[in-house]
Protein backbone atom coordinates (compact mmCIF):
# COMPACT_ATOMS: atom_id res chain seq x y z
CA UNK A 1 0.00 0.00 0.00
CA UNK A 2 1.26 3.49 -0.89
CA UNK A 3 2.08 5.68 2.09
CA UNK A 4 -0.35 8.42 1.00
CA UNK A 5 -3.95 7.99 -0.06
CA UNK A 6 -5.31 11.02 -1.84
CA UNK A 7 -8.89 11.89 -2.67
CA UNK A 8 -9.56 14.90 -4.89
CA UNK A 9 -12.79 16.88 -4.63
CA UNK A 10 -12.89 19.33 -7.54
CA UNK A 11 -9.91 21.67 -6.91
CA UNK A 12 -9.18 20.56 -3.36
CA UNK A 13 -8.01 17.27 -1.89
CA UNK A 14 -7.71 15.32 1.33
CA UNK A 15 -4.75 13.09 2.09
CA UNK A 16 -4.42 10.16 4.48
CA UNK A 17 -0.92 9.31 5.65
CA UNK A 18 -0.89 5.58 6.39
CA UNK A 19 2.42 5.96 8.25
CA UNK A 20 1.21 8.48 10.81
CA UNK A 21 -2.57 8.02 10.62
CA UNK A 22 -2.91 11.78 10.06
CA UNK A 23 -5.36 13.32 7.60
CA UNK A 24 -4.55 16.55 5.79
CA UNK A 25 -6.47 19.06 3.72
CA UNK A 26 -4.90 20.46 0.54
CA UNK A 27 -6.01 23.91 -0.57
CA UNK A 28 -6.62 24.37 -4.30
CA UNK A 29 -3.12 25.87 -4.66
CA UNK A 30 -1.37 23.15 -2.64
CA UNK A 31 -3.27 20.52 -4.61
CA UNK A 32 -2.32 22.10 -7.95
CA UNK A 33 1.30 22.42 -6.84
CA UNK A 34 1.39 18.77 -5.79
CA UNK A 35 -0.16 17.63 -9.06
CA UNK A 36 2.27 19.75 -11.11
CA UNK A 37 5.27 18.40 -9.17
CA UNK A 38 4.05 14.85 -9.59
CA UNK A 39 3.13 15.08 -13.27
CA UNK A 40 5.98 17.32 -14.40
CA UNK A 41 8.90 16.36 -12.17
CA UNK A 42 11.49 18.19 -14.29
CA UNK A 43 10.12 21.65 -13.57
CA UNK A 44 11.91 23.90 -11.10
CA UNK A 45 10.03 26.10 -8.61
CA UNK A 46 10.14 29.18 -10.84
CA UNK A 47 8.70 27.26 -13.78
CA UNK A 48 6.00 25.78 -11.60
CA UNK A 49 5.10 29.21 -10.23
CA UNK A 50 4.70 30.55 -13.77
CA UNK A 51 2.64 27.56 -14.86
CA UNK A 52 0.36 27.78 -11.80
CA UNK A 53 -0.07 31.56 -12.14
CA UNK A 54 -1.26 30.94 -15.66
CA UNK A 55 -3.59 28.20 -14.51
CA UNK A 56 -5.06 30.35 -11.68
CA UNK A 57 -5.17 33.41 -13.99
CA UNK A 58 -3.11 35.61 -11.65
CA UNK A 59 0.13 37.56 -11.99
CA UNK A 60 3.23 35.56 -10.99
CA UNK A 61 4.21 38.40 -8.64
CA UNK A 62 5.88 38.36 -5.23
CA UNK A 63 2.60 37.78 -3.40
CA UNK A 64 1.81 34.74 -5.53
CA UNK A 65 5.38 33.54 -5.01
CA UNK A 66 4.84 33.73 -1.23
CA UNK A 67 1.65 31.69 -1.56
CA UNK A 68 3.57 29.08 -3.55
CA UNK A 69 6.33 29.02 -0.91
CA UNK A 70 3.71 28.51 1.79
CA UNK A 71 1.98 25.72 -0.15
CA UNK A 72 5.36 24.08 -0.85
CA UNK A 73 6.23 24.19 2.85
CA UNK A 74 2.92 22.59 3.80
CA UNK A 75 3.41 19.78 1.26
CA UNK A 76 6.94 19.20 2.57
CA UNK A 77 5.70 19.18 6.14
CA UNK A 78 3.09 16.56 5.29
CA UNK A 79 5.77 14.56 3.44
CA UNK A 80 4.07 14.68 0.05
CA UNK A 81 7.03 16.55 -1.40
CA UNK A 82 10.61 15.97 -0.40
CA UNK A 83 12.51 18.74 1.35
CA UNK A 84 15.40 19.84 -0.90
Amino acid at each position, binding site marked *: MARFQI*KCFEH*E*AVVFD*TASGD*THYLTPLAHALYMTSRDQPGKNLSEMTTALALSFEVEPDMHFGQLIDHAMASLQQIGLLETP
Partner: protein
Amino acid sequence: MKLLQLSPSSLRKHLAGQGVWLRTGPFSLRIQSRLPRVAEGLIELYGQFEVRDSNLAFADFHVEINSPSMLRRWFRPQVNFSFDGDLPFKPLPLDQAYPMLEWGLNWSISMHAHQYLIIHAGVVEKNGLAAILPAPPGSGKSTLTAGLVLSGWRLLSDELTLIDRKTGLIQPLPRPVSLKNESIPLIRDFSPDAFINRASHDTAKGTVAHMRPPKESVRRQHEPARPGWVIFPKWSADSSTTLTPRSKAQTFMFLAQNAFNYSQLGADGFRVGTRLIEQAECYDFQYSQLDQAVAAFDRLANAAPAAKAA
Protein backbone atom coordinates in the same frame (compact mmCIF):
# COMPACT_ATOMS: atom_id res chain seq x y z
CA MET B 1 -43.15 -8.37 21.54
CA LYS B 2 -43.09 -4.61 21.94
CA LEU B 3 -42.17 -2.90 25.19
CA LEU B 4 -45.61 -1.28 25.43
CA GLN B 5 -47.11 -4.78 25.70
CA LEU B 6 -45.38 -5.23 29.05
CA SER B 7 -47.36 -3.88 31.99
CA PRO B 8 -45.53 -1.15 33.93
CA SER B 9 -45.27 -3.43 36.96
CA SER B 10 -43.85 -6.26 34.84
CA LEU B 11 -41.34 -3.90 33.22
CA ARG B 12 -40.22 -2.57 36.61
CA LYS B 13 -39.86 -6.13 37.90
CA HIS B 14 -37.73 -7.19 34.91
CA LEU B 15 -35.61 -4.05 35.09
CA ALA B 16 -34.92 -4.60 38.77
CA GLY B 17 -34.14 -8.28 38.22
CA GLN B 18 -32.48 -9.89 35.21
CA GLY B 19 -32.97 -6.78 33.12
CA VAL B 20 -34.94 -5.92 30.01
CA TRP B 21 -33.60 -6.99 26.59
CA LEU B 22 -34.35 -4.31 24.05
CA ARG B 23 -33.40 -3.86 20.40
CA THR B 24 -32.52 -0.45 19.01
CA GLY B 25 -31.33 -0.32 15.41
CA PRO B 26 -28.64 -2.99 14.93
CA PHE B 27 -27.90 -3.29 18.66
CA SER B 28 -29.42 -5.32 21.44
CA LEU B 29 -29.25 -4.02 24.98
CA ARG B 30 -29.82 -5.51 28.39
CA ILE B 31 -30.86 -2.74 30.74
CA GLN B 32 -31.06 -3.16 34.49
CA SER B 33 -32.34 -0.55 36.93
CA ARG B 34 -34.26 -0.28 40.17
CA LEU B 35 -35.02 3.40 39.56
CA PRO B 36 -38.65 4.34 38.85
CA ARG B 37 -37.50 7.22 36.62
CA VAL B 38 -35.71 4.86 34.29
CA ALA B 39 -38.74 2.59 34.04
CA GLU B 40 -40.91 5.64 33.43
CA GLY B 41 -38.61 6.90 30.66
CA LEU B 42 -38.53 3.53 28.91
CA ILE B 43 -42.33 3.17 29.08
CA GLU B 44 -42.85 6.67 27.69
CA LEU B 45 -40.20 6.63 24.98
CA TYR B 46 -39.43 3.04 23.95
CA GLY B 47 -42.96 1.60 23.72
CA GLN B 48 -42.59 0.64 20.05
CA PHE B 49 -39.26 -1.16 20.49
CA GLU B 50 -38.86 -4.93 20.52
CA VAL B 51 -38.22 -6.59 23.87
CA ARG B 52 -37.40 -10.20 24.71
CA ASP B 53 -36.75 -12.34 27.72
CA SER B 54 -33.26 -11.27 28.76
CA ASN B 55 -32.45 -14.81 29.94
CA LEU B 56 -32.91 -16.19 26.45
CA ALA B 57 -31.46 -13.52 24.17
CA PHE B 58 -27.87 -12.40 23.58
CA ALA B 59 -27.26 -8.70 24.20
CA ASP B 60 -24.49 -6.60 22.65
CA PHE B 61 -24.36 -4.22 25.61
CA HIS B 62 -25.18 -4.82 29.27
CA VAL B 63 -25.93 -1.55 31.00
CA GLU B 64 -27.14 -0.75 34.47
CA ILE B 65 -28.27 2.51 36.00
CA ASN B 66 -28.70 2.55 39.77
CA SER B 67 -27.91 4.43 42.95
CA PRO B 68 -24.29 3.94 44.00
CA SER B 69 -24.98 3.10 47.65
CA MET B 70 -27.74 2.74 50.20
CA LEU B 71 -26.73 6.04 51.83
CA ARG B 72 -26.88 7.88 48.50
CA ARG B 73 -30.50 6.89 48.14
CA TRP B 74 -31.32 9.31 50.93
CA PHE B 75 -28.52 11.88 51.05
CA ARG B 76 -28.21 13.91 47.80
CA PRO B 77 -29.29 10.89 45.80
CA GLN B 78 -27.15 10.02 42.81
CA VAL B 79 -27.04 7.52 39.99
CA ASN B 80 -24.26 5.55 38.31
CA PHE B 81 -24.18 4.23 34.77
CA SER B 82 -22.36 0.94 34.41
CA PHE B 83 -21.32 -0.82 31.21
CA ASP B 84 -20.43 -4.50 31.51
CA GLY B 85 -19.78 -3.85 35.19
CA ASP B 86 -17.47 -0.87 34.64
CA LEU B 87 -18.29 2.71 35.62
CA PRO B 88 -17.16 5.00 32.78
CA PHE B 89 -18.65 8.17 34.30
CA LYS B 90 -18.86 9.96 37.60
CA PRO B 91 -22.27 9.69 39.30
CA LEU B 92 -24.94 12.27 38.51
CA PRO B 93 -27.90 13.56 40.55
CA LEU B 94 -30.91 11.24 40.63
CA ASP B 95 -32.97 13.71 38.60
CA GLN B 96 -30.63 13.00 35.67
CA ALA B 97 -31.09 9.21 35.72
CA TYR B 98 -32.97 9.01 32.44
CA PRO B 99 -30.73 11.35 30.40
CA MET B 100 -27.74 9.53 31.89
CA LEU B 101 -29.09 6.28 30.44
CA GLU B 102 -29.36 7.88 26.98
CA TRP B 103 -25.89 9.45 27.23
CA GLY B 104 -24.49 6.15 28.47
CA LEU B 105 -26.04 4.28 25.55
CA ASN B 106 -24.54 6.81 23.12
CA TRP B 107 -21.17 6.28 24.75
CA SER B 108 -21.50 2.47 24.68
CA ILE B 109 -22.26 2.47 20.96
CA SER B 110 -19.71 5.10 19.95
CA MET B 111 -16.91 3.37 21.87
CA HIS B 112 -17.59 -0.16 20.67
CA ALA B 113 -19.47 -0.38 17.35
CA HIS B 114 -16.44 -0.13 15.07
CA GLN B 115 -18.18 -2.00 12.24
CA TYR B 116 -19.47 1.51 11.51
CA LEU B 117 -17.77 4.84 10.95
CA ILE B 118 -19.63 6.82 13.62
CA ILE B 119 -20.06 10.54 13.10
CA HIS B 120 -21.42 12.89 15.75
CA ALA B 121 -24.39 14.11 13.73
CA GLY B 122 -28.15 13.90 13.44
CA VAL B 123 -29.43 12.08 10.38
CA VAL B 124 -32.88 11.96 8.77
CA GLU B 125 -34.20 10.41 5.55
CA LYS B 126 -36.73 11.15 2.85
CA ASN B 127 -37.31 9.40 -0.49
CA GLY B 128 -34.49 6.97 0.30
CA LEU B 129 -31.82 9.65 0.75
CA ALA B 130 -30.30 10.63 4.09
CA ALA B 131 -29.46 14.15 5.21
CA ILE B 132 -26.57 14.15 7.70
CA LEU B 133 -26.62 17.11 10.09
CA PRO B 134 -23.24 17.56 11.78
CA ALA B 135 -22.79 20.66 13.85
CA PRO B 136 -21.27 21.94 17.04
CA PRO B 137 -23.50 22.23 20.16
CA GLY B 138 -25.85 25.20 20.05
CA SER B 139 -26.28 25.15 16.29
CA GLY B 140 -29.87 23.91 16.46
CA LYS B 141 -29.08 20.42 15.15
CA SER B 142 -31.40 18.51 17.48
CA THR B 143 -34.18 21.08 17.12
CA LEU B 144 -33.98 20.81 13.34
CA THR B 145 -33.84 17.00 13.53
CA ALA B 146 -36.95 16.99 15.73
CA GLY B 147 -38.77 19.43 13.44
CA LEU B 148 -37.97 17.35 10.37
CA VAL B 149 -39.07 14.02 11.86
CA LEU B 150 -42.31 15.64 13.06
CA SER B 151 -42.86 16.75 9.45
CA GLY B 152 -42.56 13.48 7.59
CA TRP B 153 -38.83 12.83 7.50
CA ARG B 154 -37.69 9.50 8.92
CA LEU B 155 -35.52 9.63 12.02
CA LEU B 156 -32.31 7.67 11.57
CA SER B 157 -30.58 9.16 14.61
CA ASP B 158 -30.32 12.48 16.42
CA GLU B 159 -26.76 11.95 17.70
CA LEU B 160 -24.90 9.09 16.02
CA THR B 161 -24.66 8.68 12.27
CA LEU B 162 -23.65 5.05 11.67
CA ILE B 163 -22.04 4.46 8.28
CA ASP B 164 -21.77 0.78 7.43
CA ARG B 165 -18.14 0.17 6.43
CA LYS B 166 -19.08 -2.63 4.04
CA THR B 167 -21.95 -1.00 2.16
CA GLY B 168 -21.48 2.75 2.76
CA LEU B 169 -25.17 2.92 3.71
CA ILE B 170 -26.44 4.67 6.81
CA GLN B 171 -27.78 2.35 9.48
CA PRO B 172 -30.77 3.71 11.43
CA LEU B 173 -30.59 4.05 15.20
CA PRO B 174 -33.91 5.83 15.88
CA ARG B 175 -33.75 6.42 19.63
CA PRO B 176 -35.41 9.31 21.49
CA VAL B 177 -34.40 12.79 20.31
CA SER B 178 -32.53 14.81 22.93
CA LEU B 179 -33.87 18.35 23.31
CA LYS B 180 -32.18 21.06 25.31
CA ASN B 181 -33.26 24.32 26.92
CA GLU B 182 -35.27 26.58 24.57
CA SER B 183 -35.76 23.82 22.03
CA ILE B 184 -38.11 21.97 24.44
CA PRO B 185 -40.94 24.58 24.41
CA LEU B 186 -40.13 25.36 20.76
CA ILE B 187 -40.82 21.76 19.70
CA ARG B 188 -43.92 21.61 21.95
CA ASP B 189 -45.24 24.67 20.12
CA PHE B 190 -44.22 23.34 16.72
CA SER B 191 -46.02 20.04 17.24
CA PRO B 192 -48.35 19.85 20.27
CA ASP B 193 -48.89 16.14 19.57
CA ALA B 194 -45.20 15.28 19.99
CA PHE B 195 -44.50 13.44 23.22
CA ILE B 196 -41.64 14.93 25.23
CA ASN B 197 -40.83 13.41 28.60
CA ARG B 198 -40.30 15.34 31.79
CA ALA B 199 -37.26 17.57 31.78
CA SER B 200 -34.14 17.08 33.88
CA HIS B 201 -32.71 20.38 35.08
CA ASP B 202 -29.20 21.63 35.82
CA THR B 203 -27.44 18.98 33.76
CA ALA B 204 -24.09 19.69 32.09
CA LYS B 205 -26.13 20.61 28.99
CA GLY B 206 -28.73 22.67 30.85
CA THR B 207 -32.33 21.47 30.91
CA VAL B 208 -32.74 18.25 28.93
CA ALA B 209 -35.78 16.26 27.82
CA HIS B 210 -36.32 13.52 25.24
CA MET B 211 -38.85 13.30 22.43
CA ARG B 212 -40.39 9.94 21.58
CA PRO B 213 -39.21 8.71 18.13
CA PRO B 214 -41.99 8.42 15.53
CA LYS B 215 -43.58 4.98 15.32
CA GLU B 216 -42.82 4.70 11.59
CA SER B 217 -39.12 5.44 12.16
CA VAL B 218 -38.94 2.66 14.74
CA ARG B 219 -40.84 0.26 12.47
CA ARG B 220 -38.29 0.89 9.70
CA GLN B 221 -35.24 0.80 11.96
CA HIS B 222 -33.60 -2.01 9.99
CA GLU B 223 -33.94 -0.21 6.64
CA PRO B 224 -30.69 1.60 5.76
CA ALA B 225 -30.51 4.75 3.64
CA ARG B 226 -28.15 6.09 1.01
CA PRO B 227 -26.20 9.26 1.83
CA GLY B 228 -27.77 12.21 0.02
CA TRP B 229 -26.63 15.39 1.74
CA VAL B 230 -24.30 16.65 4.44
CA ILE B 231 -25.85 19.85 5.77
CA PHE B 232 -24.38 22.04 8.50
CA PRO B 233 -27.32 23.76 10.22
CA LYS B 234 -26.94 27.02 12.08
CA TRP B 235 -29.83 28.63 13.89
CA SER B 236 -29.51 32.40 13.96
CA ALA B 237 -32.20 34.77 15.23
CA ASP B 238 -33.96 36.73 12.46
CA SER B 239 -31.86 35.16 9.71
CA SER B 240 -33.44 34.17 6.42
CA THR B 241 -33.44 30.52 5.36
CA THR B 242 -30.40 29.97 3.16
CA LEU B 243 -28.75 26.89 1.77
CA THR B 244 -25.21 27.48 0.48
CA PRO B 245 -22.96 24.89 -1.19
CA ARG B 246 -19.77 24.20 0.75
CA SER B 247 -16.42 22.57 0.04
CA LYS B 248 -16.51 18.78 -0.01
CA ALA B 249 -12.90 18.47 1.11
CA GLN B 250 -13.47 20.76 4.10
CA THR B 251 -16.68 18.92 4.90
CA PHE B 252 -14.73 15.66 4.95
CA MET B 253 -12.17 17.18 7.33
CA PHE B 254 -14.92 18.31 9.69
CA LEU B 255 -16.56 14.88 9.66
CA ALA B 256 -13.22 13.16 10.28
CA GLN B 257 -12.59 15.42 13.28
CA ASN B 258 -16.11 14.85 14.60
CA ALA B 259 -16.23 11.11 14.10
CA PHE B 260 -15.96 9.04 17.26
CA ASN B 261 -13.78 6.33 15.74
CA TYR B 262 -12.18 7.77 12.57
CA SER B 263 -8.66 7.48 13.99
CA GLN B 264 -9.24 3.89 15.16
CA LEU B 265 -10.32 2.81 11.66
CA GLY B 266 -7.16 4.12 9.95
CA ALA B 267 -7.14 3.95 6.14
CA ASP B 268 -10.58 2.34 6.10
CA GLY B 269 -12.06 5.32 7.91
CA PHE B 270 -10.60 7.52 5.17
CA ARG B 271 -12.04 5.26 2.47
CA VAL B 272 -15.52 5.13 4.03
CA GLY B 273 -15.60 8.85 4.76
CA THR B 274 -14.43 9.98 1.33
CA ARG B 275 -16.89 7.60 -0.33
CA LEU B 276 -19.67 9.16 1.72
CA ILE B 277 -18.68 12.69 0.71
CA GLU B 278 -18.38 11.64 -2.92
CA GLN B 279 -22.03 10.59 -2.91
CA ALA B 280 -23.40 13.56 -0.97
CA GLU B 281 -24.11 17.18 -1.75
CA CYS B 282 -22.65 19.44 0.94
CA TYR B 283 -24.27 22.63 2.23
CA ASP B 284 -24.25 25.23 4.96
CA PHE B 285 -27.77 25.94 6.15
CA GLN B 286 -28.89 28.98 8.09
CA TYR B 287 -32.37 29.36 9.54
CA SER B 288 -34.44 31.05 12.19
CA GLN B 289 -37.94 29.63 11.59
CA LEU B 290 -38.39 25.88 11.93
CA ASP B 291 -41.31 25.64 9.49
CA GLN B 292 -39.28 27.43 6.81
CA ALA B 293 -36.32 25.16 7.50
CA VAL B 294 -38.52 22.09 7.02
CA ALA B 295 -39.87 23.55 3.76
CA ALA B 296 -36.31 24.08 2.49
CA PHE B 297 -35.42 20.46 3.29
CA ASP B 298 -38.59 19.27 1.57
CA ARG B 299 -37.66 21.21 -1.57
CA LEU B 300 -34.22 19.61 -1.51
CA ALA B 301 -35.69 16.11 -1.15
CA ASN B 302 -38.30 16.69 -3.85
CA ALA B 303 -35.69 17.97 -6.29
CA ALA B 304 -33.42 14.96 -5.81
CA PRO B 305 -33.89 11.86 -7.91
CA ALA B 306 -35.49 9.23 -5.69
CA ALA B 307 -32.97 6.73 -4.40
CA LYS B 308 -33.38 3.10 -5.28
CA ALA B 309 -34.36 0.95 -2.35
CA ALA B 310 -31.24 0.34 -0.32
